[in-house]
């Protein structure tokens, strides 16, 4: 039963992410990315990582995709993206090779025989409970650092996005265009 669910999820995720990586339309790419992330949380639930699945749903497909959706309002999302692609076969070969090598390097130790789990968490409790105990004992300092990092990122996002907010975007856009053209002529 788990295998059936895994294969369905795997095929769907691969297809959706292929659409994300290949599509010419930003809107299609973003929606397929969001759908793929929802399905990835399904994989986490199969693995028994309930808390991680819930976080994936809330943070990734909730917050991050909403952020992208809001960010897209600044850009022209209805037009197709024109991209000049050269040597597609080389790109695919290179990316496939490097990904396989990377995954092999980092996953090879985990397939080995003599591995003992270091952080097992409390026995006999469900996954969110165990995660909470480990997160607030062994990983407390990284947790606090992550909190500070999120605060810094929030302030940076506000400051970066609010520059020249008093001018309308089309106004700035018209001002900026001649500069680019002059640069190209030089």
């Amino acid at each position, binding site marked *: 039963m788990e295998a059936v669910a*895994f294969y369905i999820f*795997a095929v769907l*995720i*691969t297809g959706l*992410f*292929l659409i994300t*990586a*290949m599509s010419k339309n*930003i809107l299609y790419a973003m929606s397929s*990315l969001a759908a793929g*992330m929802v399905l*990835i949380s399904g*994989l986490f639930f*199969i*693995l028994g990582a309930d*808390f*991680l699945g819930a*976080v994936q749903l809330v943070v*990734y497909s909730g*917050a*991050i995709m909403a952020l*992208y959706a809001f*960010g*897209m309002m*600044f*850009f022209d999302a209805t037009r197709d*993206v024109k*991209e000049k*692609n050269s040597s597609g076969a080389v*790109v695919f070969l*290179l*990316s*496939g090779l*490097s*990904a*396989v090598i990377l*995954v092999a390097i*980092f*996953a090879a130790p*985990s397939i080995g025989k003599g*591995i003992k*789990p270091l*952080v*097992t968490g409390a026995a006999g409790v469900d996954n969110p409970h165990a995660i909470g105990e*480990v*997160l607030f004992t062994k*990983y407390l300092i990284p947790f606090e650092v*992550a909190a500070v990092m*999120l605060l810094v*990122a929030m302030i*940076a*996002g*506000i400051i*970066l*996005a609010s520059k*020249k907010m008093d001018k309308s975007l089309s106004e*700035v856009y018209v001002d*900026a265009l001649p500069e*680019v053209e002059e*640069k190209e002529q030089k």
Partner: protein
Amino acid sequence: MTLTLTHYLVLSAILFSIGIAGVLRRKNLLMLFFATEIMLNAANIAFAAISSYIGDLSGQMFALFIIAIAASEVAVGLGLLILIYKKYGTLDLDKFTVMKG
């Protein structure tokens, strides 16, 4: 037929290579960001799978921190994208070439 760790690692490798291919061939900055998200998610799958099959919670912790890092990366990155769009009026990477070589 039972699921093994290899199933998840193969899926993770496939998704990761899709992400790398996206990063290498995309010329639009926003699409480039989407491709990096795909790579982060592939790494998350591998972490969660290894953590679950070995019985060690550290992998899930790492995946949690990766998600936090991805969230802050998107916040800062989108701010920068909006600035770039205001300056150049486009998100095409080929238009940003300043150096003549």
